[in-house]
């Protein structure tokens, strides 16, 4: 297999189930098992939320914005309210800032625990998936108890938060932090002592420090390439300038480093939540916000579990925003992940992509196939692919031509 191949093969991975639970499409050019080139197609789940906000009131937009992401919903809603509160000149009560930060860190916990399980799953370590997702339920239950929802908490409103944390809930959260901390210590020991895991993740998905900066990587992806960037420290918001915590970095530059950064960030979040709860100021949880926002603009930044979130809001003095712009962290990490895959093995693609903790939606409706013997690339349509699959199954002795014939309508799209 060592001789130079005259033909390289381009295969599509995705958009459906590209080793992830979200649609995205990779067009991967291979020489044998080595990846030569990667094309990433995004946008499949573009829902026009920015445009939709322009025809809705600020408060309606807040609930819509919270639905940009199903995992880091509080990240988006907080990023948006911060921008609007700056435009409106609202000064939040300290208690509201603290409560917003507590929810933010609970969200980071469940997001990182979810990621750890996904990473385990992608490398065939499903026990880790079962463990971490069981533990994640503890956080989900806390969020449900505080806000009424497991995701899309509806905690934020302009001028503060909508729900308080009672002394009983505080006790429950503190107890849960102890349990989760014990569990996380176990995960750290697994991550630092389990040789199968270390060897599978080390040297995979390498992103050098300089490349991380050049390609604009954010969040744990950047921090695992020793780029000490964290919006919570660099451009503090909510209560982050009043609480002690460390920015976790690693100089390993690979998927293993990203794993260590995330598990250690969990430990920092437990510390943060305890500190916030134990120093929770008394007082109101919100101030009254106007229905019409004054004309103005603001840019808000937020350290979501996956990295920096950026929202830009422009108000024109009416009840509706003039413009809402959302930049989610995965978009900043896409260039970096394409770079990480080059010259690496195809089998590493799932874990390398999963290691940025992607949250994207994408499309690609065309399939590139290299014709045997010819080396020329042809494009085949969905209908041709459908017919091809029917012929292939017929050769295996199965006639599927009467099944799901309505799928053929996909040809027109």
């Amino acid at each position, binding site marked *: 297999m060592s001789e130079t191949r005259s033909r390289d093969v381009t295969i599509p991975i995705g958009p459906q189930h590209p080793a992830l639970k979200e649609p995205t499409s990779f067009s991967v050019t291979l020489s044998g098992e080595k990846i030569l080139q990667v*094309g990433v197609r995004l946008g499949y789940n573009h829902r026009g939320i*920015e*445009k939709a906000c322009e025809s809705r009131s600020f408060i309606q937009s807040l609930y819509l914005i919270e639905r940009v992401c199903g995992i880091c919903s509080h990240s988006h809603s907080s990023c948006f309210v911060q921008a609007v509160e700056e435009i409106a000149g609202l000064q939040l009560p300290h208690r509201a800032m603290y409560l917003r930060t507590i929810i933010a860190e609970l969200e980071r916990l469940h997001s990182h625990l979810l990621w750890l399980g996904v990473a385990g799953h992608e490398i065939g370590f499903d026990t880790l998936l079962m463990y971490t997702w069981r533990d994640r339920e503890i956080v989900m239950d806390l969020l449900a108890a505080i806000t009424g929802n497991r995701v899309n908490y509806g905690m934020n409103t302009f001028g503060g938060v909508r729900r308080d944390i009672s002394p009983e809930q505080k006790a429950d959260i503190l107890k849960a932090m102890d349990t989760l901390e014990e569990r996380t210590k176990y995960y750290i020991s697994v991550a630092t002592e389990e040789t199968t895991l270390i060897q599978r993740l080390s040297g995979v998905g390498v992103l050098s420090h300089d490349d991380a900066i050049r390609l*604009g990587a954010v969040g744990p992806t950047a921090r695992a390439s020793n780029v000490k960037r964290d919006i919570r420290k*660099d451009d503090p918001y909510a209560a982050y300038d009043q609480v002690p915590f460390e920015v976790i970095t690693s100089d390993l530059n690979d998927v293993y480093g990203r794993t260590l950064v995330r598990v250690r960030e969990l430990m920092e979040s437990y510390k943060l939540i305890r500190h916030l709860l134990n120093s929770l100021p008394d007082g109101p949880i919100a101030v009254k916000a106007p229905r019409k926002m004054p004309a103005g603009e603001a840019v808000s930044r937020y350290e979501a579990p996956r990295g920096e979130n*950026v929202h830009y809001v422009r108000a024109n003095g009416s009840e509706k925003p003039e413009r809402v712009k959302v930049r989610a962290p995965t978009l900043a990490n896409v*260039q970096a992940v394409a770079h990480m895959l080059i010259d690496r093995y195809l089998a590493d693609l799932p874990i390398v992509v999963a290691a940025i903790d992607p949250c994207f939606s994408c499309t690609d409706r065309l399939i590139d196939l290299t014709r045997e013997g010819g080396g020329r690339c042809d494009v085949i349509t969905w209908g041709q692919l459908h017919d091809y699959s029917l012929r292939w199954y017929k050769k295996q002795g199965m006639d599927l031509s009467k099944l799901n014939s309505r799928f053929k309508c996909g040809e027109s799209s």
Partner: protein
Amino acid sequence: MSDMSQEQAIQTELTAAYPCLQDTVRIQRARRLYAAVPRERIGEVFAFVVRKMDFSMLCAITGLDEGETLGVIYHLARPDGTMLNLSASVPKERPILRSVTGFFPAADAYERELIDLLGFQVEGLGPGPHYPLPDDWPAGQYPLRKDWTAPDQAGPPRQGSENPDV
């Protein structure tokens, strides 16, 4: 009021290099500066702040429909958290920008978004797929323009109680 000396230093440096920005650079709050730049100077000012003033991160690019013109805002940041938002307006009938992918490769997706959603033309941006719209999106339809409405919005509202498929 917090100490704004760092923001004022940035304002002074920028206006010293570009006196035309004298009246447009403003400090909105700690770590947030805005500057409206004449469109013929935007490339030059962008290069200056990136190369000479340590604004080494491009956080996002926002496009806006301003009526007669299309607006663009480059959200640049320093590692210390200070953000400078450089804006410029270009005529709607000739909405041409120079690509900044030479400075920031990650700008690729941001610029494709300007093209797809607002109809900007970005010179120097290499060929690539649509983002975020589908490949078969009709030409000349720019969803974030103010006069654009989704075709199905004109139809009658769906009745929640009716479900003919069940």
